[in-house]
């Protein structure tokens, strides 16, 4: 499909000749669906669709108690401090953004009256301005009205470096102005194709100015409301024991009619994923459990009880392996894996190609991740239109052997291949996590058969993902030959996600290994394509540029994608819930109900 044809289709939708759903279906067939299709339509002046849960109850309340189990316990309730998903889930119960993402990547208004579009004048033609109309008659839990002041304040709060908000990235390069009490205008410095970041989803929850006003910047941690949230959400705060339990009660003044259904809400934390699944699927002690990183077999067995069901939704998260093309065992200027070095064998593309052939992605999916992930050869998989159609994976020990034979790597007496005295012996590192260790085992076995010896190493997650400069085991240091982890794609757009492939983000000693490009690999073509995509307002051209970045890295076999991860949750059979891979599980908790 050419760019032109696409434009015609969008026009058809706009004129009503083609249904939204029809458009999305066609895009789907082209490998270019839902979330970004929605964005495409929005940019072309077509309103977003809605894939949220249809809400049946006819009045608010009467649903009794809703029990949610988060096996990682929430520890704080300020959405801008929320370091992990668990905290974002908890704070989202009380706070709301202007809009959230549904499971198909549609932008759904929450505190906004409508999603900005070209048609309603919310988006400017130059891609620099977004105007949000706010919902009227929204009240904070303490009865004060919600206004544009709160929105402007939230931006100031998060942008202040002294606040040290995790969301600060979304607010640093923008200007937020109050137009009137219920209108806010955002101005971007550059034309910004992906404008739905500030005030949207995880990063966008609005704080009440009258509670946080005095606690901006350095004093931020002293705010009493950090632990006793006053928001606009469907449930009001009752009690919170950090790391243990959070309770809420129905907000009678909630701004969506007839919502929420439940009278009380309890979020319990702690334990492990398997027993969380048990508590929902087997004993029914809880209604909902989240992030069930459990072997699918185990989940399936639990589901047979019939007390609950497992639900998976797509996300942009990707489990992948980096092959280090720099030398991790030689120190240059105080750092190992420096770009000034070359890996003795992994810098050979043939070796990397062979290793890629030794990964049995289908088995890994089938026997380990199940519904938790889909085997893939593309780094970006969601939204599907950013997924490369060109990249394919294959598992063939034979081919790998042949490639290595041809490249001159001969098996030594110990069965390990070598060339010029350099053995194909690698340290393969990942974090401690059962599926990852099993994946490591599977890959190790296949490599063994191709004469490659892997030493498996696993590091405690808190160390592996730490930013401690002194620690050699962090994933950004890459002091190993191969490493495997998952990286999160926070919004249904891969631009920011793909900064892992640009040369100026290479992690090194100078930037204290905080650079996003962990692989150290770079390609001027990728840099160029990425830069172009950042300014490209035409969604189709932009998608093509981003796909190019992805393909360069995957084809170089520096990045070996394994699985496109899904978000797995379990709910009681009678609970109607709505979770999304693009937003937190509680993003639409107001609409949950029991049948």
């Amino acid at each position: 499909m050419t760019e032109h044809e696409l434009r015609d289709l969008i026009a058809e939708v706009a004129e009503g000749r083609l249904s939204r759903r029809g458009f999305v279906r066609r895009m789907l067939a082209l490998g270019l669906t839902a979330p970004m299709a929605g964005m495409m339509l929005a940019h072309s002046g077509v309103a977003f669709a809605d894939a949220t849960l249809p809400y049946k109850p006819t009045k608010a309340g009467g649903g009794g108690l809703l029990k949610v189990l988060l096996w990682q316990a929430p520890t704080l309730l300020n959405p801008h401090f929320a370091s992990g998903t668990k905290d974002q889930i908890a704070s989202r119960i009380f706070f709301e953004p202007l809009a959230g993402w549904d499971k198909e990547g549609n932008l759904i208004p929450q505190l906004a009256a409508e999603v900005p579009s070209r048609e309603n004048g919310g988006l400017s033609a130059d891609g620099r301005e977004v105007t949000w109309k706010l919902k009227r008659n929204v009240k904070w839990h303490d009865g004060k009205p919600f206004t544009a002041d709160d929105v402007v304040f939230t931006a100031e709060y998060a942008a202040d470096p002294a606040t040290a908000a995790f969301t600060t990235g979304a607010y640093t390069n923008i200007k937020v102005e109050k137009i009137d009490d219920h209108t806010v205008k955002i101005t971007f410095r550059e034309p910004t194709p992906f404008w739905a970041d500030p005030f949207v989803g995880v990063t966008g929850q609005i704080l009440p100015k009258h509670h946080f006003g005095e606690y901006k910047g350095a004093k931020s941690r002293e705010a009493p409301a950090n632990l006793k949230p006053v928001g606009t959400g469907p449930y009001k705060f009752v009690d919170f024991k950090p790391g243990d339990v959070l309770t809420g009660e129905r907000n009678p003044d909630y701004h969506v009619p007839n919502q929420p259904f439940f009278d009380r809400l309890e979020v319990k934390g702690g334990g492990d994923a398997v027993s969380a699944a048990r508590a929902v699927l087997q004993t029914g002690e809880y209604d909902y459990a989240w992030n069930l990183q459990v072997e699918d077999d185990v989940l399936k067995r639990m589901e047979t009880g019939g007390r609950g069901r497992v639900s998976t939704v797509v996300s942009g998260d990707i489990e992948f392996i980096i092959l280090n093309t720099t030398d991790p065992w030689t120190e240059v200027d105080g750092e190992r894996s420096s770009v000034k070095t070359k890996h003795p064998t992994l810098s050979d593309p043939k070796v990397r190609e062979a290793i890629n052939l030794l990964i049995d992605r289908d088995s890994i999916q089938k026997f380990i991740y199940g519904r938790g992930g889909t085997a893939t050869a593309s780094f970006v998989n969601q939204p599907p239109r950013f997924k490369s159609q060109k990249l394919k994976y294959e598992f063939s020990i034979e081919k790998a052997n042949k490639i290595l034979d041809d490249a001159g790597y001969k098996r030594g007496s110990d069965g390990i291949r070598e060339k010029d005295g350099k053995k194909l012996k690698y340290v393969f590192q990942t974090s401690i996590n059962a599926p990852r260790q099993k994946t490591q085992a599977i890959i190790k076995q296949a490599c063994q058969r191709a004469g490659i010896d892997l030493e498996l190493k696993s590091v405690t997650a808190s160390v592996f993902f730490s930013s401690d400069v002194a620690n050699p085991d962090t994933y950004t240091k890459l002091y190993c030959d191969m490493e495997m982890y998952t990286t999160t794609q926070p919004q249904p757009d891969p631009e920011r996600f793909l900064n892992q492939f640009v040369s100026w983000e290479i992690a090194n000693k100078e930037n204290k290994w905080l650079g996003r490009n962990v692989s150290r690999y770079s390609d001027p073509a990728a840099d160029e394509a990425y830069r172009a995509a950042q300014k490209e307002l035409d969604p189709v051209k932009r998608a093509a540029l981003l796909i190019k970045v992805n393909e360069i890295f995957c084809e170089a076999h520096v990045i070996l994608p394994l699985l496109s991860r899904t978000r797995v949750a379990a709910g009681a059979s009678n609970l109607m819930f709505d979770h999304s891979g693009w937003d937190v599980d509680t993003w639409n908790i107001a609409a949950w109900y029991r049948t």
Partner: protein
Amino acid sequence: MASTGVLAILVAGVLVGPLLWPVPIDEIDFSARLATPSADHPFGTDDLGQDLLARMMYGGRISLAVGFAAMLVATVVGTVIGAIAGMSRRYLDPVLMWVTDLFLSLPQLPLLLLVIYLFRDELKAVFGVEGGVFIMIVVVIGGLRWMPVARLVRAQFLSLREKEFVEAVRAMGASRWRLVVRHILPNAIGPVIVAGTIEVSAAIIAESTLSFLGLGFPPDIPTWGRLLFDAKDHLDVAPHWALFPGAAIFLTVLSINFIGDGLRDAFDPRRVM
């Protein structure tokens, strides 16, 4: 006697077993996942179809070695500290007992994390991956379990050094060193060995608990504790997975404790009278 036999069989099993059952511990066979015990896999398989008998025998080496080595560390350190405290008359004793109490209050887990972080690379360079982790775990488990031994040895020393035969040897002009090494220590060692036998089982359990908390051996090393931990989510369909390592730990603990009881009797001089 029977217990010595059981322990001997276990030890022989993990030492000689891999020679008789030369199945690789990490041979993945998706067609035989969670297989129940059969001729092909006498102990069944785990969820990657890896042979549990082979894994048990391999892991047993490590579990038993951890148990005995940690016991050795705990008893040697405890005996040395307890002996010094028990022999010193005035100042050293309270200081050492203070240190002992201090160690009793130290948390194992952060300490283990620290040790792994500080020494892993150095130890790995010298002893290899498994050897390095092995040494760290042994040092941490043993290093945090010497205190009861030290107290025991000290109490033994305090009572033995007042015994007439010790005084008799002192009256002969024996040096303190000779007193301790030739006379007090051999007589104090009986209860220490009994305590040591208990340490073996405690260390095996401690290692498995560390695995549970994700701080033990690398996950691809199938110690008994690790196997038990991995099996826990599949108990309902594959109880054999947990049964064999569980039984192995139990038999080891049981036989070692019975041997300890036997040793206690054997070391009791009254018995012979």
